[in-house]
């Protein structure tokens, strides 16, 4: 499989990365190079093989459902570009 300019433009949109028309051609070539490289996986017979979900077999840890942390609003917004009263500020979302 390979990608064309329109597909790369759409993928960039999905990834929320602005791509200029100048960059598009280079990206198409690079992404197709990588997709051609991974194409060799089609040689492998994977029928009856389970996809890996956990590299070391382990049970998901559980803990008692209780509050163990909190009241750290100042810490949480400390690195944000724009905040007001412990809220993150963003451009208007709903008109």
């Amino acid at each position, binding site marked *: *499989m390979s*990608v064309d300019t329109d*597909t*790369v433009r759409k*993928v*960039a*949109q*999905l*990834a*929320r*990365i*602005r*791509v200029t028309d100048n960059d598009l051609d280079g*990206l198409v070539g*690079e*992404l197709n*190079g*990588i*997709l051609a*490289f*991974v*194409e*060799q*996986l*089609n*040689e*492998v017979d*994977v029928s009856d*093989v*389970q*996809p*890996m*979900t*956990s*590299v*070391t077999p*382990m049970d*998901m*840890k559980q*803990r008692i459902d209780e509050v163990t942390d909190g009241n*750290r609003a100042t*810490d949480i917004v*400390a*690195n*944000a*570009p*724009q905040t007001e009263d412990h809220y*993150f500020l*963003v*451009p*208007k*979302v709903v008109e």
Partner: protein
Amino acid sequence: MTDLTKLTIAEARTGLNAKDFSARELTEAYLSAIEAANPALNAYIAVTDDKARAMADASDARLAKGEAGALEGIPLGIKDLFCTEGVHSQACSRILGGFEPRYESTVTANLWRDGAVMLGKLNMDEFAMGSSNETSCHGPVINPWKSSGSNADLVPGGSSGGSASAVAANLCAGATATDTGGSIRQPAAFTGTVGIKPTYGRCSRWGIVAFASSLDQAGPIARDVNDAAILLNSMASVDDKDTTSADIPVPDYRSAIGKPIKGLKVGIPKEYRVDGMPAEIEALWQTGIDWLRDAGAEIVDLSLPHTKYALPAYYIVAPAEASSNLARYDGVKYGLRVPGDDITSMYENTRAEGFGREVKRRVMIGTYVLSAGYYDAYYVRAQKVRTLIKRDFEEAFAAGVDCMLTPATPTAAFAIAEMATASPIEMYLNDVFTVTVNMAGLPGISVPAGVDNSGLPLGLQLIGRPFDEETLFQVGHVIEQQAGSFSPKRWW
């Protein structure tokens, strides 16, 4: 005073306990060395000198009271991927510019608990994506090694290039690093240092900036095998804050060093003899086999038939996980924000300006292979191949093999910008011997074993059973005893 920087961690600990010098003197020696070397090597991107002095003074106070920890007074460099409270933690990406976390990663907290001193944050490939440390937003790191008869600057490997360069040039006693596809072992091999990627789950990932969560593991880069064991003992822990942290006690790795390897079965996987491998690497591998056989190990030829598919499967799995992990960089919660007409264009502008070229490429590949209609063809297939890669190893270990010996890298260090015109795939091939280990979640160590015709260091890799880092230290030490140690000639 500069002689103090030549001591191994073990030697420095002995000197500190004997009051031959103070922790403050040791730290000052490293700070002077960094000041002199860093303009040339660019290994550190932030030097925390005030903090280092305060931590060293606190170590001296504990030493005086007889309360020294296992790493008391030992000055370390920390890869920029580790969150350090109140200190620059940027993953060498513009998108995390100015980020100073309000918390400490578990691995670094373990080191400070044991008395270590932080010298500063080390350069790396952006978000740990790279094999040459050339994708950092702070510019490339220079390898302290040079080819004989050439003055060209060489790469230290990546992504932990700053860690490897700093350890090789004596700008820290040891360093933290991380390894997703080879990012500890490849730079260690390129700089004549020892690097170990432990078993997935051995070190907590809490507080480490995520790249590919099912592959990322922290580990040390050190001057010798013994120092690597000391550092891993402190870095590894069982951590409730990481659900993939293994609930297995951390053994005393140093007790494995010096144990005879007589009767150990060492596997030699034939698929690692790749086309176009330089003759000197092939010869080094054979030398390593001879050393281990002479020390009493039983050498077993074996096959790992899915080896060649590890790298292509990695370049689906790792970008897929990265595209998901890096979705959090949106200009809202931390780091860079580039304004736009509306919230979507703010996201798009921020990520366009904040991410470098390699990171964008991987996020886009990951987005593509996870997108509707392609998920099964790419991602699910790659995870199935990953099951087969792991099965190859399981079968070899079930047949009684204790560890495997392979080359660490297909080449020695190359020149800065040498790969600039190469395709991304050519750069990815650097990890051809290391990436299988991440795909199977196994431990792997790179130990310096010789030099090539240009006098550049080369490493051998040992691959172990899950949670059997001890055998890697035990066998790695035998290689080290035979090969000796390798230090660059100072030019900076």
